[in-house]
Each structure stands twice: as structure tokens, then as C-alpha cells.
């Protein structure tokens, strides 16, 4: 029978530092791809509600394509395809970490674009009209009236996305990033302790994502009060 307490007392001093080190990579991927996704998301959402049909169509296409693909496929394409397309260029800077951030960021941008768009469209059109009637340009109305309100509306769904993203970073194992899942796999199989190691990994993921969960809950509560 497995005696987990004993296994942990014997091994934790070796496993924990290593896993924590790898979990730092997980956090880094999540953080940078989140920033990228927010930037892409805002840009695509603004294109999505543009008055120019071509721009709108391009935005819709990119959203639908990215949403229709499994994240792994996006990661593979982003990481493996560019070097094959442009073999003449220097790709030494393009490591698995960069590919992971880019892939998750692009995919997340398409997801968040829809979140942002629905946030903007949730506002009554009277808000925009009131701003325009006071002499604001459409750009000023967007900056000072629409976006500040839309931001509040989308905070909870964006938080939920961030939680999902943190967990999705585990897929980056598949393009060879040494994040926590990859690290855990090698320890688990070299030490023949899959159960003990993966339970520990689960605990670490939980510790990373639970604070985010609490934050989202708090934001949702505040939204309810505000309405």
C-alpha cells in the first residue's frame, strides 16, 4: 500500500523546490500570455465593432478561427509553422517559452475579444449618444464613457478567463516548455512516484488558482451590489 505521508517526508525536500521552480515558469507564461490576450482582445473587439465592413469581417473571421481550434493546435501552429515558412530567418530567439506565450496570447485574444465586445454592447446606446451630444468625438466617447463602464462589466468574465488560462498553460508541455506539468512528469517517472507527485502538483495548481477564484467571486459580488 502507498504510504503517502512517508513518501512525502522522504522526498519533499527534493521535489518541492524543483516543482516550485517549474511553477514559476507556469506563472510567467500565464502572466505574459494574459497581457498579450488583453491587448489582442481589445484590438480585435474594436475592429469587431468598426464601421468599416472589411475590418469587421476580418475580426469576425479571426475570432471564429481561433475559437474553433483546440489550444494545442494553435500552440503547434504558432511554434512549429513560422520557422518552416521562413527558413531563411534566424529563429534562435524563438524558444518554446515565446511560442507558448504567443500561442496562448493569440488564442486568448480571440476569446477575450468576444467578452469585451459583449461588455461594450451591454451598455445602452444612450450612453454613447449622450457623450456624442455633449460634443465628444466617437474616440473620446469610447475612452471616457464606454470603456470605463465596459471594464467593470467584463472584469468577472476576464477573471474567469485568467483562471482557465493558468490551467491551460499545462498544455505547453506538448511543445516542450519546462513548466510545472513537464517537470512533474519527469520527476514522477524517474522516481516511480506518479501518485505522490501528481497530487502535489494538483495542490500547487490549486494554491495558484484559488486566490484568483476568490478575487473573481469578490468582483461578482460587487457587480451585483452595483446593479
Amino acid at each position: 500500500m502507498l504510504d503517502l505521508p512517508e513518501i512525502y517526508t522522504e522526498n519533499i525536500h527534493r521535489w518541492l523546490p524543483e516543482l516550485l521552480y517549474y511553477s514559476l515558469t507556469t506563472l510567467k507564461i500565464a502572466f505574459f500570455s494574459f497581457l498579450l490576450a488583453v491587448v489582442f482582445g481589445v484590438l480585435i473587439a474594436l475592429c469587431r465593432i468598426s464601421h468599416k465592413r472589411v475590418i469587421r469581417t476580418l475580426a469576425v473571421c479571426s475570432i471564429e478561427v481561433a475559437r474553433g481550434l483546440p489550444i494545442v493546435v494553435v500552440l503547434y501552429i504558432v511554434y512549429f509553422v513560422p520557422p518552416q515558412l521562413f527558413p531563411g530567418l534566424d529563429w534562435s530567439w524563438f524558444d518554446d517559452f515565446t511560442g507558448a506565450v504567443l500561442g496562448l496570447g493569440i488564442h486568448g485574444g480571440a476569446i477575450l475579444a468576444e467578452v469585451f465586445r459583449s461588455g461594450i454592447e451591454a451598455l445602452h446606446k444612450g450612453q454613447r449618444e449622450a457623450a456624442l451630444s455633449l460634443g465628444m468625438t466617437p474616440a473620446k466617447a469610447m475612452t471616457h464613457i464606454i470603456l470605463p463602464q465596459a471594464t467593470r462589466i467584463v472584469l468577472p468574465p476576464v477573471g474567469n478567463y485568467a483562471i482557465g488560462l493558468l490551467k491551460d498553460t499545462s498544455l505547453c508541455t506538448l511543445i516542450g516548455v519546462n513548466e510545472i506539468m513537464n517537470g512533474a512528469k519527469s520527476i514522477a517517472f524517474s522516481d516511480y512516484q506518479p501518485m505522490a507527485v501528481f497530487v502535489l502538483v494538483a495542490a500547487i495548481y490549486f494554491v495558484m488558482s484559488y486566490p484568483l477564484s476568490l478575487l473573481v467571486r469578490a468582483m461578482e459580488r460587487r457587480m451585483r451590489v452595483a446593479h
Partner: protein
Amino acid sequence: MSKAGSGAAAGQPLLKIQDLHKRFGLLEVLQGVDLDVARGEKVSIIGPSGSGKTTLLRCINYLEKPSAGHIYIDGTLIGEKKVGDRYVHLTDRELARERQEIGFVFQRFNLFPHLTALGNVTVAPIRVLGLSREVAELRGREMLQKVGLGHKADEYPERLSGGQQQRVAIARVLAMQPKLMLFDEATSALDPELIGEVLRVMRQLADEGATMVIVTHEIQFAGDVSDRVIFMDQGRIVEQGPPRDVLGRPSEARTREFLKHIQDR
């Protein structure tokens, strides 16, 4: 931007509407409206639901793009400019500049819920006119006081009654010091007991000499405040004149019918 033609030539109307048409698809909501409003004049527009009153107001500040016809404020074309003998649409920036001069009070207030009363009143002076925060707040507080809400400057709209919200909305318009104010049924979203406080503020503005175009179902208020009452039906001006004529002894059958209908309610 060229202000040519403004110069307020004596007798030139502040607002001039020429043969205004507006279609939504097949529906022609405005079927050729001509209207001059003099500086300082108070004009009330009455008429049955769907007659195009809101659409007319929305065309005046170009929230709705007319299908045909032209609108001038102080001699300046609204929403378009003449290049050679063609009319071309203004850019967003040019249009925004023109809208600064036209205040619009909405039926549903449309206050900005993320800003306090004072924030609502100062955001456009700061962001549009480029006033410093201090100057804008000074002016903003003055306007809030004017509508009787000096003590509510720091409240958010959701904590204000409908009547108070509409008064903040009026203060927000006043803070831009517009040449012309448009009111689209400013009291019809309000509980009956809150209507009076908003009408009082509007009456005060009228007494101070503001130029106002007021769409309203408050016939008595229209009669008291206006220099001229306009009755619209099916996208046309059917009858207009001094309140005692249009409201007292209308010459058109449709006007009589409408007034009777309203009084029966």
C-alpha cells in the same frame, strides 16, 4: 473651423431647418419639415406618438442623419459642409465641434453611471472644452446649484431619484453653455410627483432667455412657457402659432382631435 455666416445677422434665425426628410427603410418618418427658431425663442412640439418628434430633434444634432434637407445653427450647416456646390459630411471631429453648441436632454436621462453628479457635469467641459478640473468643477457646482442639486454633487446617479437625475442631465448640458437646447419628453419617464421639479428648472431656463425646442406631452406647460407651439402629425408640421391659438382654438381638425384625446386621458 469657419464660422462664416454666423455673425448673427439681425433677424437671422438661430436654428433653420429646410425641407428635412428622414427615412428608415421604406418608412418616411419626416416628410419635409421647415422650421425657423429665433434666438431666445421657446418652441414646443406636440403630436401623437410616432409622428416624428424625437426623430426631428435627433436630426438637429445629427444623432440621426437626415435623408434630405439641411439644418443650420447660427448660419452654419450642421453635419455637412458645402464644397463647391456639393454637400459633404463632416468628419467626426468637425461634427463633435458643432454638437457642443447644441444641448440634448433625453427622455431617459442617460447619465453616466460611473461618474458622480459632479463628474457627469464636468466630464465634457474637461474632455471637450479642455477646461482645467478646477475651473470645470467651479462651473459644474454652479450648474448643479442652479438645478437645485448643489448638495448632491458627490452622489452617483443610481442614488438619485428620476427627477434629480434629469436635473443633473440638464446641468450637464448647461455646463457646455450651448446656444440651443433640445428637450425630448424630459418628464415622461418620471413619476407624476417628480415632474414638477424638472418643469420648474426648464421654466427657469426659459425665463433666463435660453433658446429651447421642447418636445412634450405636458400641454399646459407647453402653453405657459412657449412662444410658439407646433403640432406635428405623420412627419409633417400640421399647424403652428402662439400657444393660445394652437392650443386654444386650433384651426386644423387633426390638432383638435389630438388635444381632445390628450385631455381625455
